[in-house]
């Protein structure tokens, strides 16, 4: 691209100079003759000086152009302008980054977590991606490369991120509980976690007495 530019610009400038040289106004004599200064013809002397000045000017212009292209080639990054006014390689670079959040299917690849996937599909959480609750395992900046350990240290907070009663949270999309009221209703101790009653993936009630407790039983 740059080479094409340089050649075309060079041709443009050269042709303009040639055109000027042959058709410039030089009085009656037409294009000047090249004569040495030692020659006796004093009338041609002025023309000769003018021609040497032109040559110098042309030289300076050519040097400047070459310099400009050298500087441009040095400053403009590779592949810039290939597809538009940007570095074409940048697009490749930004698509080359590795994804960190994987799909639920990839958790079941090689049947590693096939059980959990099937279990999750049983309950109303079936649409939720594993990583929505578990985070991008092994990529977490805070947890480093923890994998299994990470999965079993989930607190009530994770459930409440979605299930806490909140202004603006649409009740038709997610069933909500007020933590304190839920606790009061089912009369459980604050130490008890959500997953002590709601089975972690399929959401079935583990604590069979839980429903009875509401009636003030137990």
């Amino acid at each position, binding site marked *: 691209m740059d080479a*094409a530019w340089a050649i075309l610009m060079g041709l443009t400038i050269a042709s303009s100079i040639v055109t000027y040289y042959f058709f410039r106004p030089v009085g009656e004599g037409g294009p000047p003759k090249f004569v040495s200064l030692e020659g006796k013809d004093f009338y041609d002397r002025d023309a000769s000086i003018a021609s040497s000045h032109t040559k110098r000017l042309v030289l300076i212009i050519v040097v400047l152009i070459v310099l400009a292209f050298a500087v441009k080639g040095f400053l403009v990054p590779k592949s810039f302008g290939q*597809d538009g006014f940007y570095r074409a390689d940048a697009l490749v670079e930004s698509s*080359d980054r590795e994804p960190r959040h994987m799909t639920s299917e990839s958790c079941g690849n090689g049947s590693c977590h096939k059980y959990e996937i099937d279990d999750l599909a049983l309950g109303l959480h079936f649409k939720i991606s594993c990583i929505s609750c578990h985070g991008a395992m092994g990529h977490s900046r805070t947890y480093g490369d923890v994998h299994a350990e990470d999965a079993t240290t989930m607190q009530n907070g994770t459930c409440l991120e979605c299930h806490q009663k909140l202004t*603006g949270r649409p009740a038709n999309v997610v069933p909500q509980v007020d933590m304190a009221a839920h606790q009061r209703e089912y009369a459980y101790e604050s130490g008890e976690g959500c997953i002590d009653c709601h089975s972690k993936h399929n959401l079935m009630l583990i604590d069979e007495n839980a429903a009875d407790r509401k009636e003030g039983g137990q």
Partner: protein
Amino acid sequence: MTELSRRSFIVTTSAAAMSCGLASYALAGAGEEHTYEFMVDPSKCIGCIHCVKACILENDVPEHNFRTWIERYTFKKDQTFIVESPNGGLDGFGEPDVDPKDIKKAVFIPKLCNQCDNTPCLQVCPVGATYMGPEGLIHIDSEHCIGCGYCIQSCPYGARFYNHETGAADKCDWCYHRISKGMVPACVEVCPTEARRFSIDGSDPLIASEKNEGNTRGLRQSIGTEPKLAYLGLEEKVR
């Protein structure tokens, strides 16, 4: 004679310019291109902030900066409304500072780059570090960016920020590293309620049909930025 010189000069120069234009057109490469569509359904957003967290992790977003964030619009009965986004939503929304009796409606609005077709951020970049890719998405070349901040100021949606770790402007690119591999963006992947939907070459036909039925609109359409990001059934007042 002077006449001729000028004419030939103009002719040669314009011929050169034209061939330059043609050459650059011919050299432009054609890659594999997809159509991407993103639709947000605020009526399904439960404000769990999992998208914000996933985005930060996926894209190494520095603290207190956001490529995507959640705002809560609380509309009051007296026609006014308040907008909150405590630390992009990460600090938890809690209850709004309004008497619950005065609240008419409250809704969570996920925000991210709108990928405008007629975007101001592209026009102000002095070095070509922010650009529209062949698929119409706006990208940032963080290597080439000089961090002048013009684009950050020009974005009417406040979607851009200065990334102190890379020394460049930064914003959501709809997880281009994922969608170019056929995956959905990280925020869409973790969304539990399908409040964010993404379609690659029409993989989610609902987006196109909602768009065709005219149920969607972009943010601040009156300013003519022509955002590609579609919001489904958006409240009139949401900007």
